[in-house]
């Protein structure tokens, strides 16, 4: 045994060089390589390309076309930051995130706790919450158009209490409505994350809290919430990242970011500027600013949620 240990701690010089180069577990590197290659190709390269584009006068050209793409420094960023439409889009997405992320986390946790109990129809309910998540956005948007248009079901039920202008053409309500729509649509996925986290909360904690006289609310606040905090961090960060990439809903639900730009998102603007209007350099600058904003928000979220 001793001999083995001694041999193990004093590897041959050749082996030492391999270890220095590839680490103590070279097989791990081999296993990691496919994902690293995927990451490099699908995320890092396009992102690097986008950063490069954002500093150049860039447009898409046919192979063989003689075009100049000079370095323009911060010109694209100046264009973007000086555009009131872009500033409005970033403001809109902030409103969206402020409503969507807390709503998603709160609803997902509450429903996960409910679905974790031995209630009637639990499997049906779990599936029911998951169905919107796996249904194509286009189809679900159609249902919400039916619900929230001027003469839709919701306004019919509300009668004189229906907002005027109606939901989808109301500058104050359009973005909050989209935030609620997205929260509802993605709820199934986040409930699933919380359900997995709830499986790992020791029953003894609830039992001892009950023995100490804690009621249902106190048990939820003092046991469940702290126990699923890592899941909450994940939910908040994922909801922030997916929410910041909002496109389909303003494109379809409010007719291209309407009314009057009140639901335009930065990604919708990137589509308009980059693909429709042939200015991918400006679109890339919007994208880079969005990435910086999302990373900053995610770091703040993480700090706040993992503080204790």
């Amino acid at each position: 045994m001793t001999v083995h240990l001694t041999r193990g701690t004093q590897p041959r010089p050749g082996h030492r060089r391999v270890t220095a180069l590839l680490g103590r577990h070279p097989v791990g590197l081999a296993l990691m390589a496919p994902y690293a290659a995927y990451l490099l190709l699908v995320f890092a390269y396009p992102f690097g390309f986008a950063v490069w584009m954002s500093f150049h006068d860039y447009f898409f050209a046919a192979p063989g076309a003689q075009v100049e793409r000079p370095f323009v420094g911060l010109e694209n960023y100046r264009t973007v930051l000086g555009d009131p439409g872009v500033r409005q889009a970033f403001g809109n997405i902030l409103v969206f995130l402020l409503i969507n992320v807390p709503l998603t986390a709160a609803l997902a946790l509450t429903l996960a706790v409910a679905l974790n109990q031995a209630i009637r129809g639990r499997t049906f309910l779990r599936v029911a919450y998951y169905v919107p998540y796996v249904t194509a956005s286009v189809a679900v948007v159609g249902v919400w158009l039916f619900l929230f248009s001027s003469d839709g079901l919701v306004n019919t039920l509300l009668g004189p209490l229906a907002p005027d202008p109606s939901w989808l053409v109301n500058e104050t309500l359009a973005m909050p409505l989209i935030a609620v729509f997205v929260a509802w649509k993605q709820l199934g996925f986040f409930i699933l994350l919380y359900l997995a986290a709830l499986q790992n909360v020791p029953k003894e904690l609830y039992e001892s809290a009950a023995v100490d006289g804690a009621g249902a609310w106190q048990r939820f606040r003092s046991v469940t919430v702290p126990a699923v905090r890592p899941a909450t961090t994940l939910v908040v960060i994922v909801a922030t990242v997916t929410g910041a990439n909002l496109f389909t809903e303003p494109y379809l639900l409010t007719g291209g970011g309407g009314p009057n730009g009140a639901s335009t998102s930065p990604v919708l603007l990137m589509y308009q500027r980059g693909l429709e209007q042939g200015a991918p350099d400006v679109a890339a600058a919007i994208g880079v600013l969005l990435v910086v904003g999302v990373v900053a928000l995610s770091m703040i979220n993480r700090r706040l949620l993992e503080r204790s």
Partner: protein
Amino acid sequence: MRRTVPAAFLVLSLGLTAACGDGDSGTKADSSAKGPITIWLSNNKEELAWGKAMVEAWNGQHADQKITAQELPAGKSSEEVIGAAITAGNAPCLIFNTAPAAVPQFEKQGGLVALDDFDGAADYIKQRTGAAADQYKSPDGKFYQLPWKSNPVMIFYNKEILAKAGVDSENPPLSTYDDFLATARKIKSSGVAPAAIYPAPSSEFFQSWFDYYPLFAAETGGKQLVENGKAQFGSPEGLRVAEFWKKLYDEGLAPKEKYNGDSFADGKAAMAIVGPWAIAVYGQKVKWGAAPVPTSAGKPAAEVKTFSDAKNVAMYSACKNRATAWEVLKFATSKEQDGALLDATGQMPLRADLPSTYPDYFAKNPAYQTFAEQAGRTVEVPNVPNSITIWQTFRDAYSESVIFGKRPVADALGDAAKKVDGLAGQR
């Protein structure tokens, strides 16, 4: 390590990017090369049927220069798909659905072939289309598109709804703005339809082609949105058109919320702004009539201009066998094929003197005669740099002031005109 790995990724990707940034392959094609070619057709059912028949006719006579026809691949818009194909270098030789508004962008991408490269091409285009062909020339004086067919837009009205509202359904008063507004108010107040007219109030750049622009063309006697590098919509005529639409929105005669369906077919609107394609679509469902778009003073119908809603054919630079492509282009726009297109789709080939070229067709289909006459008085979108950005800039200002009334019309359109002047002046 936690920081060095992402940093390494970034540096590597930037390196790759810099290495690939100027990846021009330098492929050039010869304008005399002949051989098989590929074309894309619109996925409109009638147009597709015409295209297939045309291809069959060509292939029957040219075994060594066969055409392979495909439907335009699906995407959010044709322009997006074509732009991607240009960048990827796999665009076909010809696309029979090229929007004039997208031509400046495709040209900037190096994606189009100047048709003037072919002997007699400019003469062929001018002879076929007449003076209207000049609207399709690019700023360098060349044709990068062949004017193919138009869908001149007019006011379509539902005779039954108008009659129920107490309006003369055979000759409804729609020629002046005052007449049009009075008719619209009657329709709305009678409750027979929720809307008098229902153009899409959404923000897409092209929506102005079906509300503001036809009336602008009519009011100005045929001006384009931008002329000589200057925006024209800030003029008194341009503002009059905008104020007219604003009244329709303010009074609820035109709704501010997008209708998810066909408001005219569903009886939700008494009128619509449409092209001749509507005859086939609504012919059986609605008892319809057609009138020119209104002008403030009520110009005689024979003087009213409108938006063409044309779709053209362009040759793409990825094409190898360009001589064949040019011959196909002439074949597909010959008198015989234009007649077949008219017969199959009801869309108007962009030919000078259309009614006299196909008298039998119009005698047999009198409903199309009005549109054929209107086809001789159409205005195209301006062929200027940043065309799409210009339309989006206009649409945003129009939404803000005309549809949603957040700013005075003159202020919003005045600011947009300044931006457009700058955009049109760029290269």
